[in-house]
């Protein structure tokens, strides 16, 4: 039985859609997960899916799973993870057991933000940064003159967790003191703050050739942390920006050494060109796969599977449909009692998907990271403006009844 082994998945979004994509391609998906609680949901939505629970996901538990399934007659064509921090580990084992040719070293570099910055330090898209470990920090660190604001982020952060904007030297001292109270042995980065619109660039590199699959503009709500509250698929892009982006991406991929694999870049466009904010060795999570599918007719996760197993992926755009996704965040905290307006929102024109991920009774909080987004509304339109207006309008129809915390 030809199978694909997936290491971990979210309950919805890109990594979850990959399970269905594997079935469409004729493979039996096997999912190795630590999350027992969503087994029932997965079993009902994916009849062919085989779920394996483990207490810990590590090299030995993955090897055990592979051996057990091989004895049962499973032939794994690839081992893939769309979830941090298993991407490079899955790719390493995929190359070993399935003879795939994924650029493991490059993916491993991308899993650590400090290493990525170090590898790209001479790249034109790189920004000024300092890498440091808060524990045992040199006194000179505090006296260094810097231009504020600065961005403070953990080397292994994801989903905007542990990313802070620091406005003054005093705030920096406070932030480092706070990090030290919880440990401070990990590496952190201090980066210059780049003004400008931020984009996600979904990228695949097929045998050394980088392919820009999609460019998605992000709308960021900036308070103390960064939370992306809107995504707009760019169906058209200015030729100058496009050309500069291709050059920047080529150089980044060359410096990273990514020959075969996928990643997504977060970049800001300024008057000095494209600046790299982050790279992650996988497709962006959440609604990204569905958005790109609706906008261009490309399922990134499906094509990624093809790319990994050595088949020719098809990243040609089958359509150009403006799509916008509006994420729901709340301003006050409280226990969720009821959500009204979902039916009305679904009925509004152009709505592709409405996903509310909050459970009744759960504690809702203002957005401090991407994890505090409680759902999204995806809409299409004849123009990008119309798609955005439709998504925002539908999202505003949702009303959350919250019980105050006493």
């Amino acid at each position, binding site marked *: 039985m030809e199978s694909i082994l997936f290491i971990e998945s979210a309950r919805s979004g890109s990594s979850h859609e990959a399970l269905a994509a594997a079935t469409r391609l004729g493979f039996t998906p096997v999912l190795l997960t630590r999350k027992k609680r969503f087994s029932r949901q997965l079993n009902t939505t994916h009849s062919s899916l085989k779920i394996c629970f483990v207490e810990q996901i590590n090299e030995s538990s993955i090897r055990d799973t592979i051996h057990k399934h091989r004895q049962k007659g499973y032939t794994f064509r690839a081992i893939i993870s769309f979830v941090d921090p298993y991407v490079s580990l899955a790719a390493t084992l995929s190359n070993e057991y399935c003879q795939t040719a994924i650029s493991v070293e490059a993916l491993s570099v991308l899993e650590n933000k400090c290493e990525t910055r170090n590898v790209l330090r001479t790249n034109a898209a790189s920004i000024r940064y300092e890498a440091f470990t808060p524990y045992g920090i040199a006194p000179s660190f505090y006296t260094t003159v810097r231009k504020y604001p600065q961005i403070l982020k953990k080397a292994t952060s994801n989903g905007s967790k542990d990313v802070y904007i620091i406005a003054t030297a005093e705030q920096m001292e406070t932030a480092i003191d706070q990090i030290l109270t919880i440990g401070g042995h990990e590496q952190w980065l201090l980066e210059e703050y780049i003004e400008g619109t931020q984009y996600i660039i979904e990228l695949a590199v097929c045998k050394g050739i980088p392919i820009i699959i999609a460019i998605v503009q992000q709308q960021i709500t900036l308070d103390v942390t960064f939370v992306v509250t809107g995504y707009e698929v760019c169906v058209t892009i200015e030729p100058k920006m496009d050309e500069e982006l291709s050059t920047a991406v080529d150089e980044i991929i060359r410096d990273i050494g990514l020959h075969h694999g996928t990643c997504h870049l977060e970049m800001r466009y300024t008057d000095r060109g494209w600046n790299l904010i982050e790279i992650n060795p996988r497709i962006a999570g959440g609604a990204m796969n569905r958005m790109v599918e609706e906008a261009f007719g490309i399922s990134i996760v499906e094509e990624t599977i093809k790319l990994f197993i050595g088949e020719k992926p098809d990243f040609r755009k089958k359509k150009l449909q403006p799509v916008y996704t509006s994420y729901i965040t*709340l301003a*006050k905290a*409280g226990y969720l009692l009821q959500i009204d307006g979902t039916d009305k929102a679904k009925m509004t024109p152009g709505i592709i998907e409405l996903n509310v991920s909050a459970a009744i009774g759960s504690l*809702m909080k203002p957005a401090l990271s991407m994890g505090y987004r409680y759902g999204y509304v995806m809409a299409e339109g004849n123009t990008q403006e119309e798609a955005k207006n439709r998504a925002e309008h539908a*999202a505003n129809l949702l009303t959350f*009844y*919250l019980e105050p915390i006493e």
Partner: protein
Amino acid sequence: MNSCCICKEMEKLLEEQKLLENFGKDCRYLQLPKKMDTIPFMLVSTDKFSNFQAIYNKGLTPFFRIESLIPSTCCAKLRLLKPSNLYGRYTNCVSELYALQKTDVCIYVNICCFIAIEPLAPQFVDRTPPFIEVKV
């Protein structure tokens, strides 16, 4: 002496309600988030096992608070509790119940005329109304 088992149970409920009312009163350090003084309940009548309902202000309510009980006669003074749903509107449906509010209306009943007591959580009484949030 005209006692019945439901009357004994009601005596116990009243006793526990008094405990609840006085809970934490003498404490210096214990801070309770909200003072509670009522164990709301419903009464099941012999008539098709339906909930006994009383009329207040043109509305019906099956929810009560016990004020006093005379054990010798099993005569209970019940305060009517006004039920409301999430939207602050009247409801007498248990599944929609969000909050209960004490009214000024009391009735006297013979507890032995009923076959069961269905207690509810004290948190329903004077529950803070919900607030509405929309996308930021």
